[in-house]
């Protein structure tokens, strides 16, 4: 049996490493390790509750919008207010734009280099000026640095890379097209961030999110600017992104059978009316093929294999957590969240699958259209390729839905509901980040934060074994993955990246001497 380390897993957010045991060419055991720790929740204590909105956005630079909105909803609840209609729509518009940014970044800039042969550019014979410039650069890098002290960095940061045999797409045209789309996607994801900035004031970390809504009054000029960028993003999603996902799926169809996982959870996202309980992508828990209602009181966090010395199996709101960097047997800074005792995958695949099985007609139409391409049924989506396809489908549907939200905005109208900070209060804020279910909880005392806690998507899927030894979702999804060349374990990297891990989010600390005794389930 060979032990293989993938340390660091690059092209994700943050510091993650993976250890796998390989026997007879397949993964038989896996450990997912979060390698960084900051202690955000401790830092929040004693501060103005409104500061939490900005501080928690710095948990993650890839999904700050989701943290900002989870925090806003959490503060709304604690302050006893609700976003007004403009506030709700503006939140949807900045969050939707960041979903587009994040999904496009994930497929093209984080994952594509696991499939696409970047060196195909060396043999490019076409006349596209951009591609010819990249070709000239790559050739110059290779000739200039050959035999030099810095030879290893030639064509950096794209090389060096895993060099397993037959790892990358062989078709030259497909590779060159993908490289062109990689470059184009850089521009498109920036346009999606322009959409975020139109109403949010800044990206990645939004400045304009506040309890009750946003600070930016929507105007006709801003809506025009947002739409201009949306048009370009939508064209790219419909004409390029979805087709590229299908092309990768054709070239790597065995990944419909890899990276599978069974339990799924979604908090639901993009509020479709002012009730706060109706979503564009539905809320629920999918286990054993059946969708159940979500009950957040069933969440526990276990720490037997995490570097904390405090008690295990507590609801996150009651968590007592003290770091223990050298705890015996522990191998990660991530805890192991469990729902009703089970590990849960969260993210675009759970969102799309739960929406599909809940009778969401738009989701069903798009999912069925993709499945038809492969003559497959819904079971195929629970896979590496299913995760990529779910992101593309979400992107397509969001581009359509966003136009309706823009039309509903009251131009010149107040962008938020006013608030006053109460002396005491408690609140829960649930939302979905691009990579899955995100919850924030607060206790306010004396107008200050007494306790603040976040349970984030990557902790759900990249967390370690639980107290009973059940593997976390990423660990379990790796089991059975074939590794052709132990020195270049690219197959394992593909499985891990399909989840879109964000480790800065996942690692946090709870100082639990103040319990949150009750909270509202949104």
């Amino acid at each position, binding site marked *: 049996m060979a032990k293989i380390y993938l*340390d*660091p897993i*690059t*092209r994700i*957010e*943050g*510091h993650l*490493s993976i250890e796998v045991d390989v026997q007879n060419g397949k993964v038989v055991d896996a450990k997912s390790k979060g*390698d*960084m*720790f*900051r*202690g955000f929740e*401790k*830092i929040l*204590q004693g*501060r103005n509750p*409104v500061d939490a909105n*900005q*501080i928690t956005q*710095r948990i*993650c*630079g*890839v999904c*700050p919008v989701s943290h900002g909105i989870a925090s806003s909803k959490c503060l709304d609840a604690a302050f006893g207010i609700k976003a007004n209609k403009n506030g709700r729509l503006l939140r949807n518009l900045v969050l939707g734009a960041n979903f587009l940014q994040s999904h496009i*970044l994930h497929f093209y*800039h984080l994952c594509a*280099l696991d499939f696409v042969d970047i060196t195909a550019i060396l043999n490019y014979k076409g006349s596209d000026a951009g591609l010819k410039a990249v070709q000239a650069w790559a050739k110059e890098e290779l000739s200039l640095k050959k035999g030099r002290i810095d030879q290893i960095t030639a064509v950096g*940061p*794209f090389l*060096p*890379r895993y060099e397993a045999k037959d790892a990358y797409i062989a078709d030259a045209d497909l590779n060159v097209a993908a490289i062109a789309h990689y*470059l184009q996607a*850089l521009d498109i994801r*920036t346009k999606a961030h*322009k959409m975020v*900035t*139109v109403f949010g004031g*800044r*990206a*990645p*970390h939004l*400045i*304009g999110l506040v309890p009750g809504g946003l*600070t*930016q*009054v929507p105007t006709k000029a*801003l809506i025009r600017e947002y739409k201009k960028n949306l048009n370009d993003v939508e064209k790219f999603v419909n004409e390029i992104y979805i087709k590229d996902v299908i092309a990768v799926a054709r070239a790597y169809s065995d990944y419909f059978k890899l990276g599978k996982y069974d339990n799924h959870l979604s908090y639901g996202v993009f509020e479709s009316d002012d009730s706060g309980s109706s979503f564009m992508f539905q809320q629920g828990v999918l286990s054993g093929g059946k969708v159940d209602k979500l009950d957040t009181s069933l969440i526990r966090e276990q720490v037997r294999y995490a*570097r904390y010395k405090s008690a295990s199996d507590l609801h996150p709101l009651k968590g007592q957590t003290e770091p223990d960097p050298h705890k015996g047997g522990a191998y990660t800074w991530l805890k192991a969240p469990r729902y009703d005792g089970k590990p849960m995958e969260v993210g675009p695949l759970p969102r799309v699958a739960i929406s599909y099985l809940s009778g969401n007609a738009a989701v069903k139409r798009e999912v069925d259209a993709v499945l038809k391409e492969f003559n497959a049924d819904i079971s195929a989506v629970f896979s590496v390729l299913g995760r990529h396809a779910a992101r593309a489908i979400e992107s397509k549907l969001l581009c359509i839905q966003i136009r309706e939200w823009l039309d509903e905005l009251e131009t010149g109208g*107040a*962008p*938020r509901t*006013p*608030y*006053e900070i109460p002396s005491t209060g408690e609140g829960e804020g649930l939302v979905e980040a691009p990579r899955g279910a995100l919850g924030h909880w607060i206790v306010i005392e004396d107008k200050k934060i007494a306790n603040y806690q976040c349970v984030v998507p990557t902790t759900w899927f990249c967390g370690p074994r639980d107290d009973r030894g059940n593997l976390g979702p990423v660990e379990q999804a790796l089991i059975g993955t074939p590794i052709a060349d132990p020195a*270049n*374990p690219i197959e394992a*990297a593909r499985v891990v990246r399909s989840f879109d891990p964000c480790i*800065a989010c996942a690692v946090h600390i709870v*100082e639990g001497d103040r319990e949150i005794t009750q909270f509202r389930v949104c």
Partner: protein
Amino acid sequence: MTLNRREFIKLMGGTAAVFGFSGVLLQGCKKAIQEAAERTPVIWLQAQSCSGCSVSLLNAIDPGIATVITEHISLNYHQTLMGGTGDAAIRVLEEAVKKQRKDFVLVVEGSIPVDSEEYCTIGMLNGKHVSALEWVRELGKNAKAILAFGTCAAYGGIPAAESRKTGKNPTGAKSLAEILPNASIINVPGCPPHPDWMIGTVLHYLLKGMPELDEYKRPKLFFGKTVHDQCEHLPDYKRGRFAKHWGDEGCLYLLGCLGMDSGCDIPKRKWLGGVNSCTGCGSGCIGCTEPVFPDYGQRGLYKHLTASLDEINSLEEPQIRAAVLNLRNGGSING
């Protein structure tokens, strides 16, 4: 390296007049670009970061990130963008240390924890995890220039903030200058920094040498004037027109805007190629380019200045004090 004069000037601040860009610099610019022969290697290390600086870098518009990577610099190591994984990635850092390369610029994003090496590790060497602290020390020895990108690397930022309950920071998070006290470090703060500040500082260093720095080791070019002095709402301030609530027209000072205390050109430069700004969207500045971010003593980021009479009486400028009192007498104030 290729960068035409127009691009360089645009990056540095639009026009020389607006940003106090020295005439001497402009005259020498073209020559320097012609003389710069090869792309300088950059090793970009992430420690206790959120990757926000890296995401902001991707938002570069003119020049775009693809141009920067293929024309202006040679990006040897960047965890979020690089093709390699695991050993295939870490070899780049390992070789730079082993071969004692001295040709590269070291960029650090994120603070560096010192209480335990386990608080941040990057890759393995000889079967052992290597801490961010160790990489920074080793690479810092030989780098020809060292840049702290973002407020965490520059001053510690949010990960280095203290719990107000315990008075302690959870991980002993430090700024780059605290880890490398003898190094000459250029700080490019911001949470996140504007992509032009990051790319502009690197290019300035490569083309023109060390930029002129202020007392916080930031390039004066970008951080030399306050937000307030360049603010879209400056005419409102001068006329005594203050916003009472978020969403109102007027200067945002009473809503707690920290623009008077913060050196940064965002109101002029704006985010994402001119789409909006922190002050333009009606929120106000939270002072993210300053060493005291996010604490500001006990003040914090948001402080509604009309909340109490004590606050109002402590305001130094009579004009503002009068305006605030007037507002306070005029009815209830929300945040």
